[in-house]
């Protein structure tokens, strides 16, 4: 009959390997393969189509950027050390400026050496204003003062760059919560996005980061960076499954201001299994 020639188990085994090599993780890879098996695919084409559909179904939530009802809209960028927050903040500001919006940056990383200078140089290149205080200032104070500043208040979109932090450091996570409150105090209902910036070269720890940051701060979305490296960021499949309300909104693909695009789930799935 139609199913006399079964798909060789080898194809499925090879696919499971490829998913693991793409950082999907062993249990997600096994679950995806099991789901394909359950559909009794009759040909390699069936397997391919099933795989695409199953992976794509992990990214069903619409990842559109959110804006507050009245300007300024404030977006927080947060995440692990070195994941690409500062560069991404500048990229986002440049992108919206090129779309005719008034974008501004806030240098709320007052901790790391030359973090403020780094963002100031990017702001200059992007042609957007940047609010900064002295190194060592309280980040909540920086946010409060930034949103009291006339030029920043006049912007359509204010992107706040924060210091890198490990999700395992409770006091640093609490600091983010305080910064969030500070924003609410100064500009109520303006904080429209809390975006976790994930390093695309990370392994399974990315899932732990996403869960921990989401538990603590209720994220509105994810940004994945460094997709121009050989990394496939397969952990996004597990995150998509476990945190369906935290869509991937942006993808960073390089070190220049224009290397940012809206996350394309179809392209991502193609790249994952390609």
């Amino acid at each position: 009959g139609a199913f006399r020639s079964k798909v060789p188990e080898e194809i499925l085994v090879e696919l499971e390997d490829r998913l693991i090599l793409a950082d999907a993780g062993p249990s997600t890879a096994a679950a995806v393969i099991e789901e394909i098996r359950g559909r009794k695919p009759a040909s390699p084409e069936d397997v391919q189509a099933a795989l695409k559909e199953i992976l794509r179904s992990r990214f069903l939530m619409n990842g559109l950027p959110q804006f507050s009802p009245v300007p300024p809209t404030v977006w927080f960028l947060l995440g692990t050390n070195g994941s690409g927050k500062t560069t991404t903040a500048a990229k986002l500001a440049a992108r919206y400026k090129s779309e005719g919006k008034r974008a501004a940056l806030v240098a709320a990383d007052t901790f790391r050496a030359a973090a403020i200078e780094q963002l100031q140089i990017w702001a200059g290149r992007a042609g957007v204003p940047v609010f900064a205080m002295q190194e060592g200032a309280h980040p909540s104070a920086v946010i409060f003062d930034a949103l009291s500043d006339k030029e920043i208040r006049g912007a359509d979109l204010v992107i706040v760059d924060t210091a890198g932090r490990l999700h395992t450091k409770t006091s640093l996570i609490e600091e983010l919560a305080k910064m969030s409150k500070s924003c609410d105090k100064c500009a109520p209902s303006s904080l429209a996005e809390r975006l976790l910036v994930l390093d695309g070269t990370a392994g399974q720890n990315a899932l732990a980061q996403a869960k921990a940051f989401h538990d603590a701060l209720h994220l509105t979305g994810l940004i994945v960076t460094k997709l121009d490296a050989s990394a496939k960021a397969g952990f996004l499949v597990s995150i998509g499954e476990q945190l369906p309300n935290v869509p991937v909104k942006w993808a960073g693909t390089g070190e220049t201001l224009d290397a940012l695009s809206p996350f394309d789930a179809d392209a991502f799935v193609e790249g994952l299994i390609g």
Partner: protein
Amino acid sequence: QLSRRLGMLFKKIRGQARLSEANVADAVKEVRTALLEADVHLSVTRAFTEEVRMKALGADVLYSIRPADAFVKIVHDSLVKFLGGAVFPIRLDRRPSVLLLMGLQGSGKTTTAAKLAAFFLAQQKSSLLVTLDRSRPAASEQLEKLAKKAGVRFLKTQADAPSSAKTAVAEAERQNVPVVILDSAGRTEVDPAVFAELRAVRDAVPVEKKILVIDAMTGQVAVNVAKGFADEVGVDGVILTKFDSDTRGGAALSVYHLLRAPILFVGEGEALNRLAPFHPDRMAGRILG
């Protein structure tokens, strides 16, 4: 985690007189899953589990009074072996000793450069810090501030990487500074052209140690990264950063298995004193959980 899962597995078979091949197969499956979840590369995981399986099928395990303990010991000892087997303290024999730090974007090179300077200063060895990174905004300012914090000299340069390296070595010789630490720009191994700069530096000055700085949470690509840097430039040692996170750090196994270059240090925090010699047995304990 893994040790607990193995414990639960072996509990089920405690009634039997000896381990069967099937028991070992089940236990090896647990090890495989644990290593992959810890981000150990698939190929390295396979090599590791095969080695464990062969050892576990040996008579002294199968007939052991406590097969579970014997099995866990095999896993532990194999992990230590796959991580280098011993502590490798960094040995500097030249004068000046030139260290070149390289790695992916954001892996922690600049911070680690300053940490190394602080480490050597604690051994009464001063360093000269230089950055070869001319692309990242405020890279020079970042290293300059960290150098000040570490209490070591920073050499301001505007020239290209090999010229800056030459100037630094000449300055270290003139000032009798025993260590020169070269911080380079982050780069990905995808485009081989980016390594030309590092080769030029290696050819311009006598680099004693080419050190790959890798983020402990790096996934399967750790092998690609290590291979790229090793093939294109050469790697003499590895430093793993951000070990203070809850990542298992399987990249350490993958990188050591591929390069056999010693893992010299782990970074365990942002502060400059958070650099510790790498201990394979402690890391093995971390993976076993």
